[in-house]
């Protein structure tokens, strides 16, 4: 079968799973007064449509920041504005100032889900296809298999189409950035990544590798001459993009400060809820949240993040090739996730370990189905297309058993939070293992079986 037909089948399967998951509940459905992320997104449409730009991030009579105040960078706000215009056309009640709080209806849900699908098709899916086509090693069947696995990845599907978010936009833009760098279009790549950063500040997790890779490349070309010009062009692209995104907020110095304050809420503490990172897991043994002062917490998290990210970044700086770049991305995001401040569990986007959140949203069934399907599919394809990795077969029943335990057993009354905490700790141990493993791989560069591409 021809490549294009195989790729289109993958896309269609991905789209079908996405839309089928969207039939289920969303975060905060039917739960006044605060509801959930779905209501937050709707509220942002209401705020951006009805209020002037300088009021979006401020606490005013018309904008109560305690009720889902905007806490993403300006691009999210502009996206909400565009959606709000469409919403107004379809049904003005959806974005009525104040009156539309907590608005829930079947048609509104369809509209919101449709906006996610639209941006997914526009930004994320083409990026995935191009990535698999150009940057996957192996013959075409392997590329198609990779595309299928990525498109069926449950974490993104469940969070975007279940819980309700727009991660596909920021991840898609970041992927375009990676594509740009891979194809040698550094300016395009920088532009795309800057846009991603201006959509969700979570993309900071990936920023250091981008920076180190580009800087390293420029240094290699010679800082006196071509390299310097390249660096200047990249910096200019980044600065201009930032300026354009933040333009409405640059008139008054208070504006950008307030936006930054909303984006990085250091006041909220080291962590919230159950997150599979170091601080939450450590808190089980030593109550660091209460033991240490906020300044100490900030310093500790900053120091440890830096410590874990430095080796990988320095290696990339010295050897700016694509393979190093990809590994650095993994290591950097893991380091930030494990050690930084105020991390949310969604930041990891790894299906098996967001179970508590998804159960709360009423998404147990799609979670089970998509995760099982993904695990089965990826292990099946992995074993068919490469050498079998026996330990992986043991992983599958282990995960099934742990999921089953969480769902069906009642925790003992003394420790009502036992299972979410156990899940978090288990996940944390996995991630710790991953970050050590991937750092070792990046730093030591063991013999690679696949032939290196020229672009590397």
């Amino acid at each position: 079968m021809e490549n294009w037909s195989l790729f289109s089948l993958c896309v269609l399967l991905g789209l079908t799973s996405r839309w089928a998951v969207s039939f289920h509940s969303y975060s905060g459905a039917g739960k006044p007064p605060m509801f959930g992320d779905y209501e937050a997104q709707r509220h942002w449409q209401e705020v951006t449509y009805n209020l002037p730009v300088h009021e979006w991030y401020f606490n005013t009579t018309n904008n109560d920041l305690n009720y889902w105040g905007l806490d993403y960078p300006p691009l999210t706000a502009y996206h909400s504005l565009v959606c709000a215009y469409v919403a107004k056309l379809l049904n003005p009640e959806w974005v009525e100032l104040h009156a539309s709080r907590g608005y829930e209806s079947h048609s509104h849900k369809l509209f919101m889900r449709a906006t996610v699908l639209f941006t997914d098709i526009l930004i994320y899916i083409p990026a995935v296809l191009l990535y698999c086509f150009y940057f996957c090693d192996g013959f075409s069947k392997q590329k198609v298999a990779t595309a299928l696995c990525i498109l069926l990845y449950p974490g993104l599907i469940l969070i975007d189409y279940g819980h309700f978010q727009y991660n596909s936009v920021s991840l898609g833009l970041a992927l375009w950035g990676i594509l740009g760098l891979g194809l040698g279009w550094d300016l395009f790549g920088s532009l795309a990544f800057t846009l991603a950063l201006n959509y969700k500040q979570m993309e900071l997790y990936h920023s250091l590798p981008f920076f180190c890779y580009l800087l390293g490349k420029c240094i290699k070309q010679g800082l006196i001459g071509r390299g310097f010009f390249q660096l200047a062009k990249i910096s200019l692209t980044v600065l201009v993009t930032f300026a354009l995104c933040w333009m409405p907020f640059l008139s008054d110095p208070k504006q950008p400060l307030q936006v930054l304050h909303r984006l990085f809420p250091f006041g909220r503490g080291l962590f919230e809820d159950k997150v599979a990172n170091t601080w939450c897991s450590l808190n089980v043994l030593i109550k660091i949240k209460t033991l240490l002062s906020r300044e100490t917490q900030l310093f500790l998290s900053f120091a440890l993040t830096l410590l874990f990210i430095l080796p990988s970044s320095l290696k990339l700086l010295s050897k700016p090739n694509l393979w190093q770049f990809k590994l650095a991305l993994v290591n950097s995001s893991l380091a930030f996730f494990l050690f930084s401040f105020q991390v949310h569990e969604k930041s990891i986007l790894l299906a098996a370990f967001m179970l508590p959140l998804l159960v709360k949203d009423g998404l147990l069934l799609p979670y089970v189905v998509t995760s099982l399907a993904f695990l089965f599919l990826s292990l099946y394809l992995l074993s068919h297309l490469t050498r079998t990795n026996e330990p992986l077969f043991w992983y599958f029943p282990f995960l099934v058993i742990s999921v089953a335990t969480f769902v069906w057993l009642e925790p003992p009354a003394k420790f009502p939070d036992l299972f979410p905490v156990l899940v978090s700790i288990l996940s944390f141990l996995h991630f710790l293992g991953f970050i050590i493993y991937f750092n070792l791989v990046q730093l030591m560069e063991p013999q690679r079986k696949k032939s290196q591409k020229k672009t590397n």
Partner: protein
Amino acid sequence: MSATSHLLKVVIQTVMAAPMTNDQSWFYALALGVSFLKCLLINAYHSTDFEVHRNWLALTHSLPVSQWYYEATSEWTLDYPPLFAWFEYGLSHIACFFDKEMLVVPNLNYASPATVLFQRLSVIVADVVFFYAVKECCKCLREDKGKDLLGKPSFILTVLLLWNFGLLIVDHIHFQYNGFLFGVLLLSIARHCQNRHFEGAFLFSVLLNLKHNCIRFIDKSRSSLFIKGQLPQVLSRLFPFKRGLCHAYWAPNIWALYNIADKAFSILGVKFRLLDINKLPKASMTGGLVQEFQHSVLPSVSPLATLVCTLLSILPALFKIWHRPNGARGFLRCLVICALGSFMFGWHVHEKAILMAILPLSLLAVDSRKDAGIFLMLSVTSHYSLFPLLFTTQELPIKIFLMLLFTIFSLASLKTLFRKGGALLNPLEVTYLLGLIPLELICEFVYPLTVWQKTFPFLPLMLTSVYCALGVTYAFIRLYISLLTCSDTTKKTKMQ
């Protein structure tokens, strides 16, 4: 490794269809994959057929057998043969563990989450019969060793059957048990192809006792219905001739074309003052669920007339096959023609009945070029004709994605299978099929925004039905021609 870990490994490998030793693993992967998809669709829209089956669960569970065909609390009376009623009875015993309330007859339209979960799961699990039947059918195909997996006829057939668009949306969204029933049919066919005729005949009688519209296949097997002296009542429920010539949405058969011709003539007649508008019968042909109506210009059609037409349409095929049996392939071809014939000319045909022709035709499609071309025409057209079944906005993307999925796969895989010998479809056929795209855009997107939506709401349905009827008729004629003109090819028969 210890014994337990070894055992566990074997279990995991079988369940996961581990690669190296077992090269049938792709079958299980496909079956599991489609089951996962069906699970994701549990929350989708379901039609009144859901309540129909819930009602049957309730009445078979709560009432004695003698009352089953007399119970009429709900409007959805039992209108399938007794064996299916027993199947519902068996299911009802499992239903107790999900939600006892669904088994209470007066609980009309009861649809708690547990009820939905149970009923949906019962369809998904019952499909195991279908999986087994497909596996058996694959055994009847000739295999080319050493071919790439995606190009193997058995792989293509498995996808065409397991992932059939019509079956997916009718069974797992609209809600029915066709997978299970078609499983029995395909198994019967497979047994005949494997020369295990007694089993084939037995399975066929089982099928008749499960769904009586398989009576159109009755020429091939004997059936036996035994009911405890309630024959007239059962028959009256099974064959409700009080319903009209067409369903509320016209199945794309001959009568759809007949209806449109009648309407066209009456409009022309009124325009040219040949007919008096006051004398025309006012019955609307698509209003309401079931309607008897009369034609204005052309003669009205009675149930007897449709029966005669159906018999006339399939007699030549039967005669040909009796005169010159052509082995398994000839048998299958005749089967498909009988199914299509009764679809084309039958009384109160549901558009879903086209599946009865498409599924067996899939077996022929992976075997010969000409049949592949006819299959593509028929499957794309009839799958599109199922679109009106899912009329909710929420299901619109699903039906489009799944339709594209199946169409692209069948086109690409059959094209690769028969790459030698030119294109499978001629330009006219391609144009007709491409015409479905603007048709969909008009009916689903453009028309609802126009002012005619209020005055002529049935127009898109009529357009769909008539357009598809052309394609189905064309496929029927081509299939007939291929049956009547094929020479005795017993030497070249690929299916043993």
